């Protein structure tokens, strides 16, 4: 089933789950306060992540979903929403 064939409701449920997983990783493993995180939050600017913290976060996401995230894909990600979309796309490929 392609992305366009997935019912919107189910797709949104799955994306909500990805958002919730990413929020858990950010709060439990990287000590970010959950109240500081929202879908439009800029991962680099708002969280003040340096390269090391960003890669650490990405590696945890890779291990959690058993996926590979290339640097070129990371460069395109700015907000939490972008990250959710990217992870959703990778796990549904």
């Amino acid at each position, binding site marked *: 089933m392609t992305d366009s064939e997935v019912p919107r409701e189910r797709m949104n449920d799955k994306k909500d789950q990805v958002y919730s997983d990413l929020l858990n990783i950010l709060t439990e493993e990287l000590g970010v306060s959950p109240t500081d995180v929202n879908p439009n939050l800029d991962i680099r600017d708002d969280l003040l992540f340096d*390269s*090391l913290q960003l*890669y*650490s976060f*990405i*590696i945890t996401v890779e*291990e959690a979903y058993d996926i*590979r995230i290339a*640097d070129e894909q990371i460069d395109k990600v700015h907000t939490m929403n972008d990250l959710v979309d990217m992870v959703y796309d990778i796990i549904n490929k």
Partner: protein
Amino acid sequence: MNDREQKMAEELVSIFEKVLVAEEKSLQKGYFSNLSLAEMHTLDAIGPYEARTMTETAQILGITVGTLTVSVDRLVKKGFVNRRRDEDDRRVVRISLTREGKLAARMHGKFHKVLAKHILEPYDEKEQELLLSLVSEVDDYLNTQVARYDNDDRIRQTAKDVAKDVRRRKTND
């Protein structure tokens, strides 16, 4: 040697040396100052995902398995590499990066990407394509030179084999 050839010879050596020095300095000043440049390149060769065999990794690095073993011993002790026996074939040793190893390799990869980005940045798309094709041609030529010396390695290996045979025959005598 004419002036252009002289300049080319100097620039080639200078680029090679400066890339190494820049890498070394970025390592020393970065988060992974306990890694040498050779160790970082070993992490790169192991790669961030599937476990590789010692033989595969040694081939990528162009070194012997014996030399790689010394380096991997150190990297295991430092916590950057995991080593385990293959479950299907106990004779095969597989190595993979720990989380810390993955982090170091990705950070180092970023160093190279940032370097390339800054070198290409001043040029427009067409010029970038031209620069890349010229650099590729230089790389292709250097590969042919490396291949020449690879043959020499085979000659040396043959010599080693002959020496081993002679020793074996003497022992049997």
